[in-house]
């Protein structure tokens, strides 16, 4: 009886705690006045201008924390060749990893000051929400719910992807309807899982999902024939097929696109300065490609460029860096140490790599793609 009483008490206390959590008051959004010290670029007369801007609480805290720590903590996938993976020397490499490096270069002028955290699809959002990582660059799709309800901000698309379906070449499956009654392997906790359910419901195809925790399990089960098809972003399908499957040449990606999957770095709500830094670091590499600035000619461009846009980008003119809370040579460091978008792309996903993906939508707008950087002004 006493035991029962103790048990009940525990349950009651627990439910009270939960109930208490439910009715929290929203804090009033107080304004803080942030003093921004603007340093004039080298070579011009040193005048310190103090600008006072009304900022929400939390403004600037991430950058301060990162600078105090001395490293940037970047959440990555770690299991996806071409995007983030350990190279033969044991270092992180990939498209997403290069954006982590670019961010470190922008902040510290040193692209090695990054600490990578491998995250599963399930862990990634809580890891960012709780502040365990500073930024999430882990092939994460930009959706309205994530951008709002989950307390996150997507900074700008680094890679335009779309969901596809891969089947064994000899299966005879060419359309979604051929999958009637079949089983589809899918990774847990992804937009992929939702898009698959939507597309199948739309086409009236009955199927069974086989849901796995990580990339290796998903493709492992598919390779064993547990599923008739595997679905994921096309980028992941083509890189995983080559890296994980024992017989990549025997699998084809169907000519069906289930969804739009814009992949973007993600930051927390509440620190707009940090949001701006990540966003403009992405735009800096895109702008660099547009203006023909790359890691080889960046020094020459900084010394001799006449195009004011390039001069502002590289910090020769104006004070773009301090506006972000960074030094004025931030973009120069990014391009010098990591390269422009084309270099990043070709290094990881270009024609010479085992994870080749045609650029398609991921070309500059001038080449018919969707990459477009707002002006550096």
């Amino acid at each position, binding site marked *: 009886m006493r035991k*029962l009483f103790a048990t009940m008490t525990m349950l009651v206390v627990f439910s009270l705690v939960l109930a208490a959590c439910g009715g929290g008051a929203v804090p009033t959004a107080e304004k803080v006045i942030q003093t921004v010290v603007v340093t004039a670029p080298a070579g011009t007369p040193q005048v310190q201008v103090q600008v006072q801007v009304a900022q929400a609480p939390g403004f600037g805290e991430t950058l301060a924390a990162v600078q105090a720590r001395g490293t940037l903590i970047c959440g990555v996938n770690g299991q996806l060749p071409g995007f983030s993976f350990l190279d033969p020397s044991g270092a992180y490499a990939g498209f997403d990893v290069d954006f982590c490096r670019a961010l470190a270069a922008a902040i510290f002028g040193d692209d090695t000051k990054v600490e990578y955290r491998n995250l599963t*699809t*399930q862990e990634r959002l809580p890891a960012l929400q709780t502040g365990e990582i500073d930024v999430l660059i882990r092939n994460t799709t930009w959706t309205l719910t994530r951008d709002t309800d989950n307390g996150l901000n997507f900074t700008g698309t680094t890679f335009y992807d779309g969901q596809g379906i891969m089947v064994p070449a000899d299966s005879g499956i060419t359309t979604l309807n051929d999958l009637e009654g079949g089983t589809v392997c899918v990774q847990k*906790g992804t937009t992929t*899982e939702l898009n698959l359910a939507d597309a199948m419901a739309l086409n009236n195809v009955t199927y069974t999902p086989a849901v796995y*925790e990580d990339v290796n399990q998903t493709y492992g089960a598919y390779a064993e024939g547990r599923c008739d098809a595997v679905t994921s972003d096309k980028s992941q399908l083509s890189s995983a097929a080559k890296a994980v499957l024992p017989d990549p040449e025997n699998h084809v990606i169907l000519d069906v696109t289930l969804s739009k999957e814009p992949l973007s770095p993600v930051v*927390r709500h509440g620190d707009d300065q940090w949001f701006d830094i990540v966003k403009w670091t992405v735009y800096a590499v895109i702008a660099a490609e547009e203006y023909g600035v790359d890691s080889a000619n960046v020094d020459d461009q900084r010394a001799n460029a006449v195009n004011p846009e390039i001069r502002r980008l590289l910090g020769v003119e104006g004070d773009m860096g301090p506006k972000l809370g960074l030094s004025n040579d931030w973009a120069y460091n990014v391009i010098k140490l990591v390269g422009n978008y084309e270099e990043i792309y070709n290094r990881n996903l270009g024609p010479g790599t085992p994870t080749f993906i045609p650029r398609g939508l991921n070309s500059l707008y001038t080449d018919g793609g969707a990459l477009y950087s707002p002006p550096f002004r």
Partner: protein
Amino acid sequence: MQNHATRVRSGTPFWRDVRFQRVFAQVVFIILLLLFFGYLIQNMIATLQRQGLALGFSFLHQTSGFDIGEYLIPYDRSSTYLRAFQIGLLNTALVSGLGILLATILGIIFGVARLSQNFLVQYLARLYIEFLRNIPLLVLLILWYTGVFLKFPRINQAITLPGPIMLTNRGIAVPWGIPTETYPSYLVILGIGLALALLAAAGLTWHGRRTGRTPLVWGWATAIFLLVAAAGWFMLPSPALSLDPPQVQGLRIAGGKQLSPEFMALLSGLAIYTSAFIADVVRAGIQSVAKGQVEAAKAIGLNGFQILRLVVFPQALRVIIPPLTSHYLNLTKNSSLAVAIGYPDLFSVSGTILNQSGRAVEVIALVMLIYLSISLLTSLFMNWYNRRIRFVER
């Protein structure tokens, strides 16, 4: 005590009274504990609010939008998160319930075999127990999944055993019955059979108490039930169930009852792993019965089976039940390892819910609460049974 009372009366300050000190220490401890948890919860709420996230369970009524591979009650992508939770809970209950049943049966067999006089039987039982007790469950599960059930042939080359039972890496399909129009009347007949069996059991127990010769009560009851069930089957104008044999149809197996490789791997892994621990508990229980009891039973002429049934087991149960309870609880909680092989149990489904809804705190709290409730219910039942056993036996 007398001593204290005199001292208190003689003017010792109350803070030096040992009774006060005892209560005071506990009160202080409880206050500190509450402050500690209060701080943690406060901190969590403050952090969530800073990020503009509010806690609440209303999201449970939103549409889930994802599909689940196995479900016992209807479910599709337009169902709510709450429904998805229920699917996960039922899948956990199914695998744990069957797992407990199988683990107990296997455990008793190997526990008794471990004490066999036959060297080979004893040695094999020992090997089984030692091997399984000393490898991690996760390893065993992955072995069953990738090493056994995924290695069955692909669906177009299915192994068909007589029955037909089909073995493929999509799952194992066995023939199953489909209820026909006479099925409801058959259920009534089964009910009558059950009532008769219980009546017979009660009568036999009463008879046994009176004469001192207890017959095989449950053996007779089962026989009566089966007899009624069989007679009822043939009495009905048409069979209550029609046979539904599995067959390959396109990409899937149609008809019959299908057991997915994930389910089979999880069930086998959990049942076999836990049975090794239960076997040891059973062995310990049997060995705890004093040797004199067995000798006395032999002396009054009971045979081997009677000794086990009437003398050894009733006394061994007293020792077996408490650790058995904790192994049942372990099995239920270990079923959350399903996530490693993709079986949609409570933990796995709630992982998906967590990710799709972004409500980490609520989902984890709910999952903890559900596992806690399952465990407490199991323990309440086992404690009740334990008390009953103790009462009957002295």
